[in-house]
């Protein structure tokens, strides 16, 4: 399977099944005003995510990807275009789009349990039911017995597991993940990738996962969107035909290597561009 450069495809092929789309990013762009200068963080971006799909967006560090995810989450207004969830246009943030950030965003004054129950409590769910769900997710992320601890005493990997549990316990329509393992060391990251895939196999949530790590993008995704920097733009869509369930060992298979080489080729020139432009402006 080869990469499909988006630009070269006829228009109708670029828009897969609009009706079946769980999440539709409809020609979204973002221009920031910075000291009187207009900086394009995200150029006309258009794609769909289907129900239960795990889609990864791969791109060079920092630029554009986070903006895109924030627009989908409703935390940032797009300059043009819109986002549709279940064929309804979104406006502002909501519990239907859960998010896991790269930075540790557990509420430090709440215990692990209280963190996971945060969204449920907002919904007004009764306590017994809340506790049941919290226990279920603590088990799912392998942190049984850690419920009464404060985030301060957890490791980075544990914190992110709780953050994932907190987002999933809220039962969102889609889960947005912004480099959730970016701050973790290589070993922990590998474990977390496998864990997230296991959780996904069980819950079959629709996940949109942003990363700058090629291995991660291939290993996790059903499809990988390769993004270029400054302005942020989708360059190619690469289907990942590696069968599931996937384990860590697939990272050394021939198929995996081939996909990796293909993507590397695609982004190499872009990475150079980004590296040379770092001085010309801040990442957005």
């Amino acid at each position, binding site marked *: 399977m080869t990469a499909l450069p988006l630009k070269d495809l006829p228009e109708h092929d670029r828009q897969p099944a609009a009706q079946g789309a769980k999440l539709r990013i409809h020609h979204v762009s973002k221009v920031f005003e910075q000291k009187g200068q207009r900086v394009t963080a995200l150029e006309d971006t258009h794609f769909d995510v289907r129900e239960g799909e795990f889609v990864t967006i791969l791109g060079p560090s920092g630029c554009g990807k986070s903006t895109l995810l*924030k627009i989908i*989450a*409703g*935390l940032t207004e797009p300059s043009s275009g819109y986002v549709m969830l279940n064929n309804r246009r979104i406006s502002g*943030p*909501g*519990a239907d*789009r*859960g*998010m896991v*950030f790269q*930075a540790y*965003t557990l*509420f*430090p*004054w*709440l*215990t692990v349990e209280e963190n996971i129950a*945060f*969204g449920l409590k*907002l*919904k007004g769910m009764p306590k017994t039911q809340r506790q049941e769900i919290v226990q279920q997710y603590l088990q799912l992320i392998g942190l049984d017995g850690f419920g*009464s*601890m*404060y*985030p*301060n*005493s957890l490791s980075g990997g544990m914190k992110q597991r709780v953050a994932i549990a*907190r*987002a999933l316990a*809220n039962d969102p329509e889609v889960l*947005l993940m912004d480099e959730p393992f970016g701050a973790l060391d290589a070993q922990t990251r590998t474990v977390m990738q496998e864990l997230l895939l296991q959780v996904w196999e069980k819950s079959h949530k629709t996940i949109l996962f942003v990363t700058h790590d090629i291995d991660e993008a291939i290993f996790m995704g059903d499809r990988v969107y390769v993004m270029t920097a400054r302005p942020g733009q989708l360059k190619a869509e690469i289907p990942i035909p590696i069968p599931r369930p996937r384990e860590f060992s697939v990272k050394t298979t021939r198929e995996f290597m081939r996909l990796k080489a293909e993507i590397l080729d695609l982004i190499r020139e872009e990475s150079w561009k980004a590296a040379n432009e770092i001085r010309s402006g801040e990442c957005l």
Partner: protein
Amino acid sequence: MRLRQYLVLKGNIPSGLYIGLGCLSFAVLMAVWCILTYGGVVPALFLPSPSEVAVQFYRMLTELNLVGDILASVYRVSAGFLLASLMGVPLGLLMGSFKLAEGLIEPLVGFVRYMPASAFIPLLILWIGIGDLEKIAVIFIGTFFQQVLMIRDVAKNISQELIDTSYTLGATQRAAFLKVVLPAALPGIVDTLRITLGWAWTYLVVAELVGASSGLGYMIMEAQRFLRTAGIIVGILVIGLLGLITDTLFKALYHRMFPWLERGTQ
């Protein structure tokens, strides 16, 4: 070499040593005081000896109504400080959360903040006389304007990502304020209160130096008028002690309220 090992940038030392060092600094101060006074280096009129101060302390306690002065001062500080905090904390939170509030209040507060509270004393006496209310007003002016800006900074420093996270979990603005901004700001608020309470005591003495008939500041002035140097020192020490007690209480409160700030145990 032991010393070498303790002289590391931001390095840790055993807690016993830490406490010991604190005691040592007090002991040195005490020793210098003893040498200067009992050694006859400084005349008693300028610096009375520890024993003279102790005797004076006892006399004031039994004959000169020291307790009454302490209560009068504590009342004024508490009232002025509470009033300032009741307005300063909400206003500061508002300023830190909404640019609109900041734009409206910040320039004015920043301007008044640089006016010395003590300079308001003549004006306040003209307006409201020399009663308790005037003293409370001085303390209010001295603490409120500092507090507002410090609380604003506390609210401003709350991570936007925590607030965003609450939105993606379904929080409304109101819920985000009550369940994220407030609890996140609370340690900073308590800390600010602890620091500004110390300032409130400073302004109390300033207020009581002028037109007062009770209170620790007044007592210090009286002692000076009759050249009871030991009385001045008693007054200063009592204020220091009261400050130490409230500070310790605040620290204890801090640890009790925010167990989540500590690492390790639950």
